[in-house]
Structure formats: structure tokens, C-alpha cells
């Protein structure tokens, strides 16, 4: 990039931040429509069974109750909430309401009432009789039961089995990862209304408006031109609001009653009955030579989809592919088995399988280094991909892969060698350092369709409106798009408006805000639309100005012919002339299909302190180094990374949704489900490697998901470095750490 950038690369504030600091922004919870009804769900309190009877008489008799919905009076069309485009196939096992109960939290009924209190009271008055069935909560047990086994997957390059069988050094690691609650501060909520023409309008904090439309149409049996999904203000998602959970039920009630209905969840419902990070049980065997070259690797994952399929299969595949995009391993096999259990439903969660598989493999890399008596950084540097290396299974090109640079720079800044070689303290508190690497994608190219259409228009005031189906999840998507457009036209950000997803008004977007695609793919489309519109403006202006196109200069909102610099006019005046004189609009609609899916990389360095008396782990310092290509808005990028580290620390140390032997969820509120708060949050230093990526807008690539991947294994490796223990299950709670320390002490006593 030879030109100096004026708007891209600047940490400008988020477009709606003023509304957010004043409390004026309206989330769905703040919206009210005339005659709006409130709706609540009744969730099952058993893990597996069949409904024998539902007695709604007492609830129905309550004044203010409008209607009660169960499997008996609602459509019984099956669907899969994970399906985001027509033609995508996946097992369809979800229903609005089902007679079969598959987990503690399954949807049994809904009440629509005139006020919240009545809706909530009515729910408590519904009596359900179940015939209980045996439940399975362990994926290992599920694996042995044909009714719970869903599918298996294999990805392979070379001949890993033979090499592992004959290799001298094979390092094995096992790791169980847990279900995690996304813990967006805004709980799930949806508002729907039936318009006079029969259309159902849905306002929802969602990630993929066209997916909401599609899933609702499938579940309700409605044509697409009768369902309009509008992306509302988002109070946090992280994948949790990706699959439509409430929308089909809420839309049905509004459609049926012909009235606006708001369906809302409290925190407990949100934890047990929406989606969770997919739990896994992983085993990995890695063959290395004495110099630290990885010869072969075999990864086995047991993937717990939970009670419904949703994206169980997709996430199993997605995580497997990541294993082939970090280290040069010619001989590698990944196999996954996907099973149902009678536990909360798995779904999309920031990283989409990456945190799970990287936790397993990056802990294993450290174990290999320990076995060889080698610095784990050195072992990694020997095996990491170089820029423009090839994905070993023929996946999309890795592109300008700068992971080695991240490791080398990070090592220096973190002062790795000195910290690593420092003698360990003797006593209660022991410090250790650890690190880990991670990779993630940039969209769907190579796996699913990935394109977006945007329209861009400059009006008579010189203002630009970018119309597309984007979704700002609080990460700064809208502002990012505005910065790109501003850069192309050289106009201030406040002259650019970028509107968000509305399935009746937005040009089609094939995939929404998922798969770390927004900046890389949608940003590239915004750039293309802006460049095409600019070319159009230049073309028409050359006719108005009577000069060659090459002579037209656009500068700081003014346009002129290069030989007449004294006759500058505002863009808006030129647009007015173009419209008046040429009867043309300065407007473009363009479709951009992503041509690539390069790898983004993150390398995290951590210093942790283990309290050997209580098993408590404190994170003292985090350095996150990212191969970002180019940061369109460095402030947003840092914000993404710091938040992702918070989430990753929870994954490593404290967050878990678990069930008791009866399948009942144990962590039902934020008092029991521990997310990291301010006093426990370390300072996070961020370092960006900006070496540019060919197809990214201004060289940018993704950060939102990869940023939460490396932190958990880096922490576990730091714990191992401190007290020399193996953690075999996440989260590494004080109990688990203490247990591992005791186990180690017993073993060393026996040896003595």
C-alpha cells in the first residue's frame, strides 16, 4: 500500500456508541408495540421421556392468558436451526414443541399473555406428566448406543498410522472439554408481529437474518415473502444467537394470534435451553523425532452434539480441518465421532471447534517438548507453516501465513526465555509461563457458498448509503464498512451510512455474521462496491467537467478537473448535475464472491501463578500476538482480542455447564457459572503483525474467533510449567488442579 491511508487503520469510535453510553439504544427488550403480548416458555424438568399429558386448565383460566401452545396445537414440521441457506442438508430433528423430551430444558409449552407476570404465573400452573426414559449424559456411553450415534468423519493425509506404530517417540494426550455458556449480557429475546398483509415481521438480535427467515419459513410452512427478519440491536452473541432458538416459536404465536408477541428468556433459561459450546473428548498421539520434527499425528475426537443435531456434524469437520493448517505435518489423521446425549444443545460458539481441538493439540505439543527436554517454542518454530505453504489436505491456500513471525516477536516482547528459565519458587505460590499457537479461517470459501451483494449510492448531498445484510454484533462491523467506504471516496465517516440486515430490504447475503467472514468477505464487497461507484462518479463527472476520466480528482469531499483546481465542487453538487444533466444515478449494486480463505493466526503467551494449597490459578500477564493482515480499526481489533481472552480464561479455568447423574443442569445462574470478572482479569497486551493479505480489504483478515483459541492451552501449559502436572479436563478448576498436584505427589512418593 503506497498511498497513505486516511480512514482505514484508525481507531475511530463505533457508530452507535453515543446511543450506548446514554442508554438510549433500543434492544428488543426495550421495544414495545401497541397491544403487545408477552410470552414465556415452559421447559422440561427431566432429561429424557415422553409427555403423557399436559394439563393447561389452571393456566388457561388465569385472567390475561391469551393462548397456550404445546405440540398438540402447533405445526409438527421438523427443522434444523443450523441451516442457514437453502440447499444445505443436515438432520432435521427440531420441532416448535415436541412430545419427546430429549434434555433438561426442552421446550414443552409457551404461554402468550397480556403481561409478563401473568405469562410467568401461567407457566408455573401447567402440569405435565411424563413417562421417563433412560437418559445418557456421557458421550462415551452414547458412542456404544446406535440410537445416540450420529455420524463419523475422517480427514487424512499420508500414512500416520504406520509411522506412529513404529516411531520411537510417541506422545499421547487426552483432554475433555466442557459445554460453555456464551454469557452474552443480553439474554435471548425476540419480538414478532403479524402485519395487515399477513407478513410476519421478526425483530431479533441475530447473526444471520436470512437464516432466521429460512428457519422460520421451514418450521411454520410459510413462503419467504411472508416472513421478514430484521436484525435488531445486539446485546452480545458470540455464536449463541446464531441459530434461531426463539424466533420460530415467537413468529408462530404472532402469526397465529395476529398480534405482536415478545418472547423472552431469563438467565437460567438462556444457560440451559439455548446453545452451548460443543463438548468434546479428545485423544491425540504425536510421533516426533529427537530433533523435534513432527513425523505424524493421529487425533480422535468424540463430539457431543447434545440433545439435538444442530451443527454437530459441521463443527466436527470444522475443528478437524484446523489441525492441518498450523503445523507442517505430512502424515496426519483426524477422526471424529458425533453423538447425541440428553444434555443441553451444542451450537456455534466463538471459534467453532477451534478452541476444543487446539486445547488438545497445543497441550500435546508442550508435552512433546517436555519429553524431548526442548523449549516448546523451539519445537513449534521447527514445525509451523511458513507464508504461502500449502494446506496438507488440499484445503484453501494459507496465504500470507505469519505465525512464525508472531512467535518470534512475541517471544521477545514477553521475555519468554528469561521467564521460562527462571527457577521455580519453593512454597505455596508457584509461577509458570506457557504459550500456544492457533489458527482460524476467513469465511466459507472451500466449504460452503460465500458471497454477498451490496448496493451503494451517493445522493445529492454527497452522502453515501451502503445497503447490505450485515449484522453489527457490537464488534464494530458497521463502522468498519464505513471506514472502507470513506477511504475510497475520501469523505468523513459521518457522510457514510451503513444499514443492517432486513430480509425485505437488504440485498442477499449468503452466510451472515459467522465463520470470521465479515471483514474479509463483506469488507471486500464494500470495497468493490465503493470502487465501482467511485468509477461511475468519475465517469459521469468527466462528461460534466468536459475532461478525461484520468483528470477527475476526488479530494476531501470535493471533485474537480486537475487542470481547473479553482473550480472545485462538492460531491453532492456533482451528483445533482449528473442527475439533472445526464439522468443517471451514482449508484452500484455488486456481488462479491470470496475467492480465498487464508489462515489467520494467534499466538498467546501467559504467565500464571498456581496456589498449591487451594489449586487456584491466577493469570498475571497475557500477551496476544496476531497475524491480522491489516487492522481496519486497531481499537476494535484490540477490543476483540481482550474480550476473547476473557472468554478463553473462563474456558480454561472456571466456566462449565455440567449435569448431575439425573441429567439436571448444575450451573443454572451466574452465581454458579463463573465468568471472569474485573479483579480476576489480567492486563492483556496486544501485538499486531500487519503484513497484508492479498484478498482482504486493505490487506485485512479475521480476528474475532481466532483470538479466543490459543489462550486456554497457553494457560494449561503455564500451569504445567509451574507445577509439572497434567490437566486432562477443562476447566482446570481449583479442585482439578489440586487433585492433579496430589496425584503427582503420590506418584513421586511411590517412586522415592
Amino acid at each position, binding site marked *: 500500500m503506497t498511498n497513505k491511508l486516511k480512514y482505514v487503520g484508525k*481507531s475511530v*469510535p*463505533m457508530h*452507535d*456508541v*453515543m*446511543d*450506548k*453510553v*446514554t*442508554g*438510549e*439504544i*433500543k*434492544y428488543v*427488550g*426495550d421495544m414495545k408495540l401497541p397491544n403487545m403480548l408477552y410470552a414465556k416458555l415452559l421447559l422440561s424438568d427431566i432429561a429424557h421421556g415422553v409427555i403423557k399429558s399436559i394439563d393447561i386448565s389452571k393456566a388457561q383460566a388465569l385472567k390475561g392468558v391469551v393462548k397456550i401452545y404445546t405440540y398438540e396445537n402447533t405445526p409438527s414440521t421438523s427443522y434444523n436451526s443450523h441451516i442457514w441457506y437453502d440447499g444445505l442438508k443436515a438432520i432435521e430433528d427440531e420441532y416448535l414443541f415436541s412430545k419427546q423430551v430429549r434434555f433438561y430444558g426442552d421446550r414443552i409449552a409457551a404461554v402468550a399473555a397480556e403481561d409478563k407476570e401473568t405469562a410467568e404465573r401461567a407457566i408455573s400452573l401447567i402440569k405435565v406428566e411424563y413417562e421417563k426414559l433412560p437418559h445418557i449424559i456421557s458421550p462415551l456411553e452414547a458412542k456404544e448406543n446406535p440410537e445416540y450415534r450420529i455420524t463419523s468423519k475422517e480427514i487424512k493425509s499420508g500414512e500416520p498410522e504406520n509411522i506412529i506404530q513404529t516411531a520411537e517417540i510417541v506422545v499421547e494426550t487426552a483432554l475433555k472439554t466442557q459445554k460453555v455458556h*456464551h*454469557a*452474552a*449480557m*443480553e*439474554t435471548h429475546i425476540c419480538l414478532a408481529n403479524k402485519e395487515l398483509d399477513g407478513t410476519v415481521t421478526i425483530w431479533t438480535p441475530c447473526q444471520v437474518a436470512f437464516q432466521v427467515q429460512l428457519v422460520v419459513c421451514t418450521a411454520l410452512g410459510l413462503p419467504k415473502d411472508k416472513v421478514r427478519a430484521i436484525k435488531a*440491536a*445486539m*446485546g*452480545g*452473541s*458470540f455464536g449463541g444467537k446464531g441459530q434461531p432458538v426463539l424466533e420460530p416459536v415467537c413468529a408462530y404465536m404472532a402469526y397465529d394470534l395476529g398480534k405482536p408477541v415478545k418472547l423472552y428468556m*431469563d*438467565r437460567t433459561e438462556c444457560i440451559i435451553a439455548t446453545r452451548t459450546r460443543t463438548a468434546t473428548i479428545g485423544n491425540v498421539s504425536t510421533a516426533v523425532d529427537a530433533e523435534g520434527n513432527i513425523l505424524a499425528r493421529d487425533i480422535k475426537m468424540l463430539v457431543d452434539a447434545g440433545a439435538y443435531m444442530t451443527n454437530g456434524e459441521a463443527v466436527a469437520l470444522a475443528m478437524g480441518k484446523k489441525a492441518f493448517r498450523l503445523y507442517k505435518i505430512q502424515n496426519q489423521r483426524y477422526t471424529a465421532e458425533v453423538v447425541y446425549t440428553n444434555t443441553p444443545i451444542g451450537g456455534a460458539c466463538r471459534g467453532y471447534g477451534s478452541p476444543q481441538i487446539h486445547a488438545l493439540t497445543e497441550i500435546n505439543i508442550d508435552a512433546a517438548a517436555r519429553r524431548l527436554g526442548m523449549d516448546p517454542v523451539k519445537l513449534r518454530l521447527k514445525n509451523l507453516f511458513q507464508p504461502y505453504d500449502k494446506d496438507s489436505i488440499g484445503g484453501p491456500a494459507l496465504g500470507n501465513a505469519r505465525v512464525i513471525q508472531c512467535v518470534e516477536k512475541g517471544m521477545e516482547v514477553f521475555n519468554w526465555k528469561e521467564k521460562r528459565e527462571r527457577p521455580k519458587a519453593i512454597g505455596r505460590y508457584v509461577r509458570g509461563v506457557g504459550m500456544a499457537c492457533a489458527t482460524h479461517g476467513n469465511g466459507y470459501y472451500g466449504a460452503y457458498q460465500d458471497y454477498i451483494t451490496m448496493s451503494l449510492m451517493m445522493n445529492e448531498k454527497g452522502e453515501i448509503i451502503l445497503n447490505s445484510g450485515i449484522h453489527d*454484533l*457490537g*464488534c*464494530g462491523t458497521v463502522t468498519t464498512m464505513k471506514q472502507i467506504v470513506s477511504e475510497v471516496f475520501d469523505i468523513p465517516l459521518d457522510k457514510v451510512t451503513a444499514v443492517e440486515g432486513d430480509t425485505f430490504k437488504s440485498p442477499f447475503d449468503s452466510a451472515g455474521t459467522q465463520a470470521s467472514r465479515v471483514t474479509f468477505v463483506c469488507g471486500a464487497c464494500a470495497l468493490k462496491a465503493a470502487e465501482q461507484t467511485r468509477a461511475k462518479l468519475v465517469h459521469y463527472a468527466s462528461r460534466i467537467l468536459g475532461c478525461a476520466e484520468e483528470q477527475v480528482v476526488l479530494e476531501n469531499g470535493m471533485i474537480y478537473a486537475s487542470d481547473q483546481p479553482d473550480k472545485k465542487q462538492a460531491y453532492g453538487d456533482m451528483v445533482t448535475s449528473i442527475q439533472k444533466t445526464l439522468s443517471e444515478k451514482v449508484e452500484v449494486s455488486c456481488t462479491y464472491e470470496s475467492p480465498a480463505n487464508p489462515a489467520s493466526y494467534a499466538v498467546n503467551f501467559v504467565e500464571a501463578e498456581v496456589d498449591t494449597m487451594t489449586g487456584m490459578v491466577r493469570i498475571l500477564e497475557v500477551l496476544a500476538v496476531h497475524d491480522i493482515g491489516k487492522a481496519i480499526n486497531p*481499537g*476494535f481489533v*484490540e*477490543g476483540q*482480542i*481482550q*474480550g*476473547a*481472552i*476473557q*472468554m478463553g480464561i473462563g474456558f480454561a479455568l472456571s466456566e462449565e455447564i455440567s449435569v448431575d447423574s439425573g441429567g439436571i443442569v448444575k450451573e443454572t*445462574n*451466574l*452465581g454458579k457459572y463463573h*465468568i471472569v*470478572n*474485573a*479483579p480476576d*482479569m489480567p*492486563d*492483556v497486551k496486544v501485538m499486531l503483525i500487519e503484513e497484508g493479505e492479498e484478498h482482504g480489504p486493505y490487506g485485512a483478515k479475521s480476528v474475532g474467533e481466532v483470538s479466543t483459541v490459543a489462550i486456554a492451552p497457553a494457560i494449561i501449559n503455564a500451569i504445567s510449567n509451574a507445577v509439572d502436572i497434567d490437566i486432562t479436563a477443562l476447566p482446570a478448576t481449583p479442585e482439578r488442579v489440586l487433585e492433579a498436584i496430589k496425584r503427582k505427589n503420590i506418584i513421586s512418593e511411590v517412586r522415592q
Partner: protein
Amino acid sequence: MILDFNVNGRDYSIEADARARLIDVLREDLGLTGTKEGCGEGECGACTVIIDGLAVNSCLVMAHQTRGKRILTVESLKQDGELDSLQKSFINNGAVQCGYCTPGMLMSCKALLMRNPNPTEHEIREAIEGNLCRCTGYVKIINAVKEVVKESKAPSEEDHHE
């Protein structure tokens, strides 16, 4: 039941349900929807308001317990069209992402600065320990508060030198 209290500098005398929580009265009866509900049991802090100078979870307070008290919500921070220094600093430091925790976060920080205009980083972290944020990792929020403290200190130090 009649509830007399002062919200954001204005006296109210309203008919409020005896069982209503403060958050419900603020949001439903007064239309002050800036105060958010994230858990309903005092664990997340999204509903934090200031009652007689103290940061309190409005989901844990019955409305009638606030009789005669002075309540400040996020809507009080902007005065005569001018943002509070905390709001400005949250904007300048990128301390806001999805924005759902922001009102509660701001009110906890405001209460802190009202009683202690010169808090240490440790005190800032403690003041927001009951305010959960899933987007920011708190880093930029803490920086924002530190900046307000630093800026408010600057002139007085100058005074001192004079």
C-alpha cells in the same frame, strides 16, 4: 401503593405495585429503559443504579424500599446536552462493544468517583467486580476510568504548583 422518590433529579409520586422491583418501575413505569436486566439476581450488574450515592443492583431492590431516596440512572449522566466525563472516556477508550453492560458499568464507576475521585486501579477493578462484561475483557473499561481520574487530577495538581 403510592411511591414518592426522586429519579434523576426529578420528584415522582407514582402508583406502583407493592411487589414491583425498582428495575421494573424504572423501565416500565418511568420509561427509563437504559437500565438493563441480565440475570435478575444481582450477579451481572447490568441493572446497576445509584441510590443515595451507592451503586445498587436495581433487580434486588423492591421499588417501595426507595421511598424518599434519590436515584440516578444512566439517563442522568448527560447534562444539558453534555456527556459526563465517564461517558466521553468510555467512547474515547473503546470501552463499549455491544453496550448491554455499559449503563450498569457506567453507574458503578460513577458511584466510585462520587465517593472517591482518586481511586487506584485496584479500587476501580473492585468497584466493577459485580458488573460482568463479555465483550471487552474489562481492559478498556478500566483504562477509561483511569483516564477520567487522571484528567480530573491534572488541573488540581496545576493549582497546587501555582
